[in-house]
């Protein structure tokens, strides 16, 4: 007796696709994790230029391993010249002395700039100007901006 040949309808097996998706998911998780790490490490730091409690104008000076950076013009002062009594930092402090009723200095200390910070603080403290300092993580640029819509170059 002849058997009637009844061919089953072709079906699609989605398991290989599932494996590909799982692989993509794992890869994306890795990418997201590493991107967040990299982004946070090198994040730009936006500094609010009008801190509470003072009506004076802050002058921000960044203390890095290689020296000082005076903001917002990003004027660099080499590490070895920070403690120099006739150097550019001493000159900047003298300028601050003349403007001490209207301005004050904030030193932004990077983790690698602790020695530079101490030299800068010693010079500034000796002149009796108003001064403050704060800890800023490494990586990224410091951008002085009241809010993110006012980014400075």
């Amino acid at each position, binding site marked *: 007796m002849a058997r009637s040949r*009844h061919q089953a309808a072709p079906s699609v097996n*989605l*398991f290989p*696709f*599932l494996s590909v*998706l*799982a692989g*993509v*998911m794992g890869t*994306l*998780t890795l*990418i*997201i994790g590493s*991107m*967040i790490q990299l*982004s*946070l490490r*090198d*994040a*730009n*730091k*936006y*500094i*609010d230029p009008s*801190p*509470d*409690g*003072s009506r004076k104008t*802050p002058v921000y000076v960044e203390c890095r391993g290689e020296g000082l950076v005076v903001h917002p013009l990003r004027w660099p002062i080499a590490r070895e010249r920070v403690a120099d009594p006739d150097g550019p930092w001493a000159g900047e402090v003298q300028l601050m002395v003349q403007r001490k009723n209207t301005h*004050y200095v*904030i030193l932004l*200390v990077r*983790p*690698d700039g*602790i*020695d530079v*910070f101490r030299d800068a603080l010693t010079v500034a403290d000796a002149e009796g100007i*108003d*001064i*403050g*300092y*704060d*800890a*800023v*993580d490494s990586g*990224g640029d410091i951008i002085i901006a009241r809010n*993110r819509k006012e980014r400075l170059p």
Partner: protein
Amino acid sequence: MKRRRNPLLPSFDSFLDIVTNVVGVMVLIVIATLVNAGDMQVSLGTPVLRDPPESASRLFFECRGGRVVRLDEQELDRLFRAAVQQHLGKTLDQFDFESVDELPRLFEEHDIGDACYRIKVEVRQFLTSKSLVWVYEPRPDAPGESLAEIHRKGSAYQRALAPLHPRQHFLFFTVRPDSFETFRAARRLARASGLSVGWYPRALDEPLIFSSGGGVGQRVQ
């Protein structure tokens, strides 16, 4: 004979839909991360250096290795005086120019301190006088709290802050370069309680030295 498909076998189609959607969402997260995660806002609060409230007492903390560690000055001072009395049979004011040199040796030979710090003593000679400086060496297994732990309700840090009064106490932190973020979080908590906070950065391997005439640790921001 045609085989019938078992209706009890699970279908993976719905699962596949979910996985596909998760992948899609993750792609969106990648894009959002790229756009936004590059920027951080730093709020400085009130950074001008000033004196702490008059006659306010200081609580000292150290931020190192991403942890906040309490340095109990009163307790370490008590342990120091007790050890001198116990081992040398003298009070501190009974030492003279010659005998003060016994102190560094005593603290080198005996491990004296609390759970967080070991006390060591150095004698520094000036022209005609000698003065003592206290070196507090952090213990490797010192208890401390991480950034996440200090935020927990009932953490040791928050318990230390709870009884403090802004007019009677202020906080001072020594901050190592690996703990800037932890320090800022601890400072935020202290400021939220109305307390004044001072800080000073120190290199990772720089010893923690206290002396009677030290200028660091006397100003807040």
